[in-house]
């Protein structure tokens, strides 16, 4: 084998602490090396040409590049090598930047280590074999999980590009939290007015299959080839017959037992219900936990009044399977529970704010419902306890956010803006009312955001007080809010009629369970994790699964929509070709040696190991062995390390290659 060694200075990044000329000179004497040079920027066009020219001139059939991390430029150099007619997998990278120059200071020591790493890579490349990328077919259908604004946007983008979409929403209607909002910052346009047309568009789109009141049960397969099992929960209403006339809901005798989810527990709803009048689809569901028929079998009022005979008490959950190529996660968020310690939770809750104890201490979404024209008060500001117009409202920011003691250390990002909006909406309707905002910092980064907050203060007269509130208690029908203005250094006491807590955004409580079902990582808060925080922010580390909206981290509507469109674009990139190319460096089983213990199957994080039966010509089972699904295998090597009989190896990183590398260092 004729090997060429190319040492990159990376400007001064490597050159400052590694004597590159000495490294290339030393490498020239390694057995098998016929050519060795160093160059200022090997990844540049002239640098790559240097490699290509040397391959021609010296008839090289192995290349070692000493440069930055393979994460950065392995692809660049392998492509250059391939352009010169050599199999790209005969090119190895020795990391002289992250592993040497950036972590050492002494030039002599660093240079010696660099020489060792080159020797190491030369020994490996000698044992490399030409490999070809794996090709797998792509199913050009997308599954979007979650029908809030992120899911709606992603579904519409993919569908409008001409690809089929399956949109799964666990609630009876799509729309998510955005459908509950009154007006949106910083433009104050009506949330429902901009959202509901999109919901209808989803419903009517020929490329979108909408599955509401449904949940993803199981995800099998791999990028381009997922098989997804979806549970369509029983609505007890036949959606092919129902016209959404609403007679059943009007006649339902159970009116007070169930609190409205859509109105954030401020009102009640019937046992058979649609969450809100603009729901999509406009088909009711029966809440079996309160319905008299399901409890005693004695009432069937809805069935009697239904002119279409659509009530179907015997309906059962249905299981659907869908062939899917890409998955977009858009499961959104929930609000932090303030009042008491939720079960199995680290959260302690804010007893000192009296949430749950005082009716007029409410959270941000409840305020949205009160402020909304479609809400329980039709947009009139009335406090929940007695319906009186509150003349003094206190808004408290960072409840649960930025609070390691009782909530989460992160900033929920949207509360500064929505609190400013709340105070503004209140001042617009109650002109003689006073609005106070307790804040720690105002975080209003965003187009026209800072201007919006200033408008609340300068034009609408909202009083901002810098300090966290310590306690709220009731006295003579008022809520006494104890704070401190930390700018003036004076204690502040406000006798408020109503208090609004800007509570933290948290991941959906079942987000971690869903992440395990789908097979993507999540952080300690339950938010889904991206592959790279800067350069791959909408991709999960599992191929073909993308992230959109607040299921990734707290974010507002414009950010969620942008992320959803980005995730849709990523799915469409996947659909751009009929076959997917995958790295060939995956595990391979030696079926002769494999004893079928399946330890590999147990440790595989990607479910890539399958059981293969080996049969003789008569069809009798000889033995069972492990089999690697080349679509799923990510080449992590865990099976390789676990296998007791050494019968599973990683192509491109065989034991022989690793041992040769280690011997080169000794």
């Amino acid at each position, binding site marked *: 084998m004729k090997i060429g060694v190319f040492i990159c200075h990376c400007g001064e990044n490597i050159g400052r602490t590694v004597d590159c000329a000495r490294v290339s000179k030393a490498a020239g004497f390694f057995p098998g090396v016929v050519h060795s040079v160093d160059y200022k920027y090997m990844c540049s066009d002239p640098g790559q040409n240097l490699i290509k020219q040397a391959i021609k001139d010296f008839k090289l059939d192995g290349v070692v590049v000493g440069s930055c991390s393979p994460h950065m430029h392995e692809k660049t150099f392998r492509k250059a090598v391939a352009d010169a007619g050599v199999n790209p997998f005969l090119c190895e990278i020795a990391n002289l930047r992250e592993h040497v*120059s*950036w972590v050492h*200071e002494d030039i002599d020591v660093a240079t010696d280590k660099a020489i060792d790493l080159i020797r190491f890579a030369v020994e490996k490349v000698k044992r490399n074999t030409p490999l070809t990328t794996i090709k797998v077919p792509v199913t050009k259908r997308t599954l979007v999980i979650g029908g809030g604004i992120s899911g709606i946007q992603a579904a519409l983008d993919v569908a409008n590009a001409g690809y089929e979409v399956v949109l799964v929403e666990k609630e009876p209607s799509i729309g998510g939290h955005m459908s509950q909002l009154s007006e949106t910052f910083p433009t104050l346009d009506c949330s429902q007015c901009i959202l509901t047309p999109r919901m209808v568009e989803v419903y009517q789109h020929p490329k979108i299959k909408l599955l509401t009141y449904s949940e993803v049960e199981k995800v099998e397969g791999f990028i381009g080839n997922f098989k997804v099992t979806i549970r369509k929960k029983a609505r007890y209403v036949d959606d092919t017959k129902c016209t959404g006339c609403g007679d059943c809901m009007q006649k339902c005798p159970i009116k007070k037992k169930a609190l409205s989810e859509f109105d954030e527990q401020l009102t009640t709803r019937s046992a058979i219900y649609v969450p809100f009048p603009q729901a999509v689809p406009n088909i009711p569901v029966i809440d079996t936990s309160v319905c008299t028929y399901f409890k005693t079998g004695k009432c069937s009022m809805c069935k009697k009044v239904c002119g279409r005979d659509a009530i179907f008490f015997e309906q059962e959950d249905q299981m659907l399977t869908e062939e899917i190529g890409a998955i977009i996660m858009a499961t959104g968020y929930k609000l932090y529970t303030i009042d008491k310690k939720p079960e199995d939770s680290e959260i302690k809750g804010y007893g000192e704010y009296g949430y749950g104890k005082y009716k007029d201490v409410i959270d941000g979404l409840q305020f949205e419902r009160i402020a909304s024209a479609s809400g329980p008060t039709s947009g009139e500001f009335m406090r929940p306890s007695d319906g009186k117009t509150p003349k003094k409202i206190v808004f408290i920011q*960072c409840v649960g956010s*930025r609070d390691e003691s009782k909530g989460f250390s992160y900033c929920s990002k949207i509360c500064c803006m929505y609190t400013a909006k709340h105070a503004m909406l209140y001042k617009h309707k109650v002109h003689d009312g006073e609005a106070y905002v307790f804040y720690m910092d105002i975080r209003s980064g965003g187009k026209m955001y800072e201007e919006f907050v200033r408008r609340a203060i300068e034009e609408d007269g909202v009083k901002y007080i*810098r300090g*966290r509130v*310590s306690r709220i208690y009731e006295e003579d029908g008022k809520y006494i809010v104890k704070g*401190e203005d930390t700018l003036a250094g004076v*204690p502040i006491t406000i006798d408020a009629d109503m208090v609004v807590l800007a509570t933290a955004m948290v991941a959906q409580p079942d987000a971690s369970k869903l992440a395990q079902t789908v097979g993507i990582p999540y952080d300690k808060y339950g938010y889904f994790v991206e592959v790279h925080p800067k350069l791959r922010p909408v991709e999960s580390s599992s191929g073909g699964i993308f992230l959109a909206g607040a299921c990734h981290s707290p974010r507002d509507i414009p950010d969620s929509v942008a992320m959803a469109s980005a995730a849709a674009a990523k799915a469409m990139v996947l659909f751009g070709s009929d076959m997917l190319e995958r790295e060939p460096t995956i595990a391979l089983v030696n079926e002769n040696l494999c004893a079928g213990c399946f330890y590999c199957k147990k440790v595989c994080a990607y479910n890539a190991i399958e059981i293969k039966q080996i049969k003789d010509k008569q069809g009798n089972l000889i033995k069972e062995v492990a089999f690697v699904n080349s679509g799923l295998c990510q080449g992590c090597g865990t099976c390789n390390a676990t296998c007791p009989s050494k019968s599973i190896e990683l192509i491109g990183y065989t034991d022989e290659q690793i041992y040769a590398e280690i011997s080169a260092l000794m």
Partner: protein
Amino acid sequence: MSHHNTTHVRTISDDITDITSQNPELCYQCGKCSAGCPMRNYMDDAPNVIVRYIQLGLFEKAMNSATIWLCAGCLTCSSRCPKNFDLAKFMDAVREVALRNGVKVKEKTILKFHKAFLKQIKNHGRSYEVGLVRDYKMATFDLFSDVENSPKMLLDGKLNIFPHNVKGKDKIKSIFEKTEVKKCK
């Protein structure tokens, strides 16, 4: 890549960190401590301001403040702090470094009360109310305030004439002798 070597100069902030085992920089100045402090109206500086003084290196301002002496150690601030910062412990530490550094104490009678109280612990291993009253009144020459309460307290058994000593009170005394701050104005 070069590394910057800086020599750390010890300050009073380090002494406070040693006593409290918590970094003063944890405090992000939200003011929830001051908002809920029952003694806030009697203080010159808000409690969060004392932490701010230490963060800024304004140790004299912190140690000369009346606030550190007015803090009753009720722990309301510590229990409500969103950063789990134990401010009551921190206040204790500021008082201690103030004494160690010989700072002129702003609230002398409070210090006299503290000393009178600790003297009972030192001598008896537990609180001895009559001794506390005697020593505090001798130290302040404030002989007659609250005297009207004493007959009822005596009748209710709140004041015992004779001290109740703990077992091994000599050991308690030796702890005091080893740890007491000697230098103090």
